[in-house]
């Protein structure tokens, strides 16, 4: 099975193939064909990822670096001694990410087939989705930080393209802007904010290369120093090897990736100086700087303070995009990068502290804002920001395994919630059309299918959506035994450990903030469930809403199952029944083979019980508070929190998103916009869209083909390639079919022909060599 691992380039190339096929021939295929190819590409990537998982298991969990055949010298500048091959890294961390990306991705692709049904740009949507997979896989499989950055930029591009996918929606909001403008504006916002983060990553890359002379995480024949490979004590709670052990060993730094170099250099307790021209800096300081720059990048991509503002707006994209890119996968790239560089963060105390503070603050801030939102997807968006804060805080606390664990479970239930919300929106729109058709008099008011105030009572209309939504809610709120309970608890327990055992203040700080954030989480989620599903419909659309098609509900059900059981991947060790059933710290052990500083969290039953209590109380409170609202069939005008004078201020603040947008507009976005307008003459959606889609994606292919020869284009592209990709199988099948005449004698002749062929093949092995079979 070890040689399976060399198949890793397929996780990139299969979606690439799917994307190319749909790009060129999507218009010929119809929705079924396009969706089929998209789903298949994604599903095959998942199969490959699963095979990689099995292969890694057979390979003793030892990481393997694979060079794809054609790309070994991807960037090579001999004069600068710079050699950056495109190498794929297969280790437990990257395989985990691959599984999540392709697994959840496949489900979302499937969902999208139903969700995007009838959209005129259906093929293009799947082209973008597959392209996203290509880049996301590049990101997680890259063996050097530059390759990761290529993926990083690519997913940003896809995110941009997909947020603005509906750039031409003509519906006009009450405040006078069209929905299309809003969508493209959101896309632009995401692009700009991410640029800031990317700038940080780029600087971190430069610094890394300068300091360590390489960009590889690890060299191909190298295993992480420390961690499992070195000393595999039986489920030791802290697996990370001690600095002394590493320091005692002899290491040759010249042939090491930068992570191992850092591990060795930082462990030996000596002061190392790094020369930057005329300036000498201590290695520790450099590492701190690198990690801070990485944090900046992570803040951009993973939506942390202060760069989170793009994520709620990104909900303008189609819901599958929100689920895939802006909840489950792309936004976790920052967390992935930090966990990948855990060696650096482990030794950079200052950075870790800042990371913790930013993460925990983001968690509670976003949780607070989410309480005041009316848009069903916005609530989830802020919830995502909040949960990403949990993960980032976990990284800061040194709980790298817990961070990835929460990433995985979050991918399950957040994708579930987003998809379910998409199902709700779909149902509402359907209901709206229905009521529209029956009564022709409803033009006076613009209907927003995402506004929770117009919903209510969908529980009976959309039972599958309802149940899966409740499961997702419980998982997110951390109710025992749903997935979120276990992952969230591990982070909380770790923060307590950091405070209690290591006496660090960031521990108690994080603990307090995160528990409060968890309370907010449970509260706003149940608020949403109450407003959406309970009581009576408050709008005709709700009355006519109907359950979505199986294509959409099936992914929901699968994700619901994963949300229920996903937490058992990493059951703590001391639980009586569950540990026997699911084993202890399975996930941490697995991750420990690539994440040097992974350690299993202790299970603190009082803490778990406390967090559970907070969540249950919050749900109970939300239930009490919104019970009155749901019984009424009149559209809600204000939140109970807003009506209560004691909380009205807070609600207003939450509803206004703590005025972040305003601040940004004033201090950041506006100047940037002015500048870019100046640069690009007309910076509106058309330019951005045309420029990116037309010039970068479409024109090179089109013009390239045309450029070779005018007629070749028609003959080769339309006939030739069409033949190979689309018509080819049909054509072959049609010809083969014709042999199947129904005449026995022909059949017998075929048997004889086969016999002769078999005999030739078996008697003359040399012929086969010549034919190269």
């Amino acid at each position: 099975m070890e040689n399976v691992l060399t198949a890793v380039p397929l996780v990139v190339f299969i979606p690439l193939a799917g994307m190319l096929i749909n790009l060129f021939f999507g218009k010929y295929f119809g929705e079924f064909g396009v969706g089929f190819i998209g789903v298949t590409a994604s599903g095959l990537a998942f199969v490959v990822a699963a095979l990689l998982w099995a292969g890694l298991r057979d390979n003793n969990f030892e990481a393997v670096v694979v060079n794809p055949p054609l790309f070994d010298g991807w960037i090579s500048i001999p004069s600068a001694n710079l050699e950056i091959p495109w190498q794929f890294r297969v280790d437990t961390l990257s395989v985990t990410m691959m599984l999540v990306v392709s697994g959840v991705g496949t489900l979302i692709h499937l969902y999208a087939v139903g969700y995007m049904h009838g959209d005129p740009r259906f093929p293009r949507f799947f082209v973008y989705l597959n392209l996203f997979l290509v880049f996301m896989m590049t990101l997680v499989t890259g063996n050097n930080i530059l390759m990761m950055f290529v993926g990083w930029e690519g997913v940003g591009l896809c995110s941009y393209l997909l947020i603005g996918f509906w750039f031409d929606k003509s519906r006009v909001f009450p405040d006078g802007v069209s929905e299309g403008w809003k969508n493209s504006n959101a896309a632009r916002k995401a692009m700009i904010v991410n640029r800031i983060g990317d700038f940080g990553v780029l600087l971190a890359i430069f610094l890394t290369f300068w300091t360590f002379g390489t960009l590889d995480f690890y060299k191909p024949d190298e295993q992480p120093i420390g961690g499992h490979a070195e000393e595999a004590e039986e489920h030791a709670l802290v697996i990370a090897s001690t600095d002394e052990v590493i320091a005692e060993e002899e290491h040759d730094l010249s042939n090491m990736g930068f992570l191992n170099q850092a591990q060795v250099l930082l462990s030996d307790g000596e002061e190392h100086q790094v020369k930057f021209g005329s300036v000498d800096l201590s290695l520790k300081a450099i590492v701190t700087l690198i990690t801070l720059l990485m944090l900046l990048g992570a803040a951009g991509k993973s939506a942390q303070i202060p760069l989170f503002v793009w994520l709620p707006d990104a909900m303008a994209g189609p819901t599958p995009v929100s689920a895939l890119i802006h909840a489950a996968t792309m936004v976790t790239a920052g967390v992935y990068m930090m966990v990948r560089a855990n060696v650096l963060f482990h030794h950079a105390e200052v950075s870790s502290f800042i990371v913790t503070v930013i993460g925990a603050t983001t968690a509670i801030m976003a949780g607070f804002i989410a309480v005041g939102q009316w848009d069903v997807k916005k609530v989830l968006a802020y919830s995502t920001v909040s949960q990403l804060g949990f993960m980032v805080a976990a990284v800061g606390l040194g709980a790298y395994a817990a961070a990835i664990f929460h990433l995985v479970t979050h991918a399950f239930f957040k994708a579930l919630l987003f998809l379910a919300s998409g199902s709700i929106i779909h149902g509402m729109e359907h209901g709206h059309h229905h009521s529209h058709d029956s009564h022709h008099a409803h033009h006076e008011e613009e209907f927003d299918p995402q506004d929770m105030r117009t919903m209510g009572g969908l529980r009976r209309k959309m039972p599958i959506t309802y149940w899966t939504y409740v499961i997702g809610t419980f998982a997110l709120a951390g109710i025992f035994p749903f997935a979120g309970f276990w992952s969230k608890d591990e982070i909380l327990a770790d923060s307590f450990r950091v405070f209690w055992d290591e006496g660090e203040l960031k521990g108690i700080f994080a603990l307090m903030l995160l528990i409060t954030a968890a309370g907010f989480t449970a509260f706003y989620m149940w608020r949403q469930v109450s407003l959406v599903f309970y009581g009576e419909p408050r709008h005709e659309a709700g009355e006519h809403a109907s359950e979505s098609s199986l294509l959409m509900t099936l992914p929901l059900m699968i994700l619901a199952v994963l949300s229920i059981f996903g937490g058992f991947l990493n059951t703590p060790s001391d639980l009586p029944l569950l540990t026997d059933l699911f084993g202890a710290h399975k996930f941490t052990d697995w991750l420990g083979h690539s994440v040097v500083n992974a350690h299993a969290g202790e299970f603190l039953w009082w803490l778990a019980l406390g967090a559970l209590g907070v969540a249950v109380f919050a749900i109970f409170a939300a239930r009490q508070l919104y019970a009155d609202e749901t019984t009424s069939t009149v559209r809600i005008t204000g939140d109970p929190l807003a009506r209560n004078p004691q909380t009205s201020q807070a609600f207003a603040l939450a509803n206004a998103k703590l005025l972040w947008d305003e601040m940004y507009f004033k201090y950041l976005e506006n100047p940037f916009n002015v500048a870019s307008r100046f640069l690009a003459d007309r910076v509106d959606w058309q330019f951005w869209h045309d420029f990116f889609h037309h010039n970068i994606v479409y024109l090179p292919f089109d013009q390239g083909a045309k450029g070779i020869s005018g007629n070749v284009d028609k003959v080769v592209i339309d006939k030739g390639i069409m033949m190979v990709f689309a018509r080819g199988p049909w054509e072959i099948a049609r010809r083969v079919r014709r042999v199947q005449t129904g005449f026995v004698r022909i059949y017998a002749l075929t048997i004889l022909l086969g016999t002769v062929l078999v005999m030739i093949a078996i008697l003359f092995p040399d012929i086969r060599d010549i034919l190269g079979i």
Partner: protein
Amino acid sequence: MFPAPPTFEDLNVWAALPVIILSLWASVLLVADRFINNKFYVAAYSLLGVGISLVIALFQAGDLFDIGESGTAFEGMFMADQFTYVVNIVALISAAIGILISYEYLERTKLDRGEYYILLMFSAAGAMLMGSSNNLSMIFISLELLSIPLYILSGIRRPQEESEESAMKYFLLGAFSSSFLVYGIALVFGAAGSLDLGEIVVVAQTISEQEATQRYLLLIGAGLITVGLGFKVAAVPFHMWTPDVYQGAPTPVTAYMSSVAKVGGFAAFLRVLVTGLPIIAEGGDAAVWVDTLQILAALTLLLGNLVAIMQYDLKRLLAYSSIAHAGYILIALAAGGVPGVGDSAAQAALVYLAAYAFTNIGAFAVVAAIEKDDSTGTTMDDIKGLAVKRPWLAGAMSVFMFSLTGIPLTAGFIGKFWVFRAAMDAGLEPLAVLGVLTSAISAFYYVRVVWNMYFETGDAVVPERQQYLTSGLVITAAGTLILGLLPFILENLVRDASLAILR
């Protein structure tokens, strides 16, 4: 000078108990059938016999109690090992489900003859014997015992032309290809001087080590045996009968035939090639026939999957799909020729066969359920909107289609996983890649079936709900899902299945 006649213990009769019980039961029932007017009881008794046999087979496979020793029985004719037991179980389950899904169909199409069930049982016995053959003569005879009842069953819907034609085609081509098999057996016998697989393997090794000239006989013999058995399992280019026969035969017969003939054929294939002729290679690395089988597997995968795309009739579609699935098992078979992979390849083939048997019978059973009494109503149009009219039927069909595609959490995935793993172990990566690609292609037409049931509207009339057929469907669907969710069931079952004598 005459050797003493073998005693009961010498024959180790108990080791072959399931197949003995099954054939005796069928023989007795054949007489009893004359006196039973209500054919329901014949069906019930056959089911009982299959059930008893199945219970014993399960006991044997699970080592729950010791019936007979493992090893050979009947003077070396019968291999009593885990491989045999697993083949027995798969064949018997196929037979049981075959009986279940047949009864109502036969009743409503006025075909209810007691001989039907008896012939079905005999052919199951043939498949079981094929899996346990340790002698080329046994391979041939049990192949015929498997085939002849199937020829008859295909034509049982007399005087309907389709049924007769399919029986005739199956029969003529079957006899034609089995004469190739006999000639191949003769040549292998000529090279090795024995019909016993255990002795052949020794001679074959000597011959290949010494580069002796008898090698050529062995090679041609192996090639011709490949033709004979390749016909049975519908490997391209010996597949031409499959679509016509599958389409023409009564649907429950097709359901049963598609799984049991493959089970028997592949079991015999594994026995002959992997056990008997594993190392007729020049270099001594992989068997010579590995390349030939690779070519066959590749052809089978491509043709089956591609032509299936164009099919409109469900039975014909499933026929091409069953050709395609033969290709996947051929991958495992080819892998079995690589030294050291023999056992895991045999296990992979068994797992695939078990998964395939459940799924495929189920899929055909759905077709039988929607088929009208005049044997129309099996086209793509006839299942449009089935999800609305008969949600459970459509659900079951979806499960089968997903399993045939090889979607995770279904039995089909487990089978494909094992097969591809065996191919990887054997270093047949191109074949594995082709397998993955073609299964992606196959998803196209399988999903089209699901699409038609769920996303199209139609007004086809579907026959009444059929109680026993439904129970068969429940078993197959549950089996498909259970095997997919709990793959360790199959893993445990086949773990000890081993073929190689010399390795």
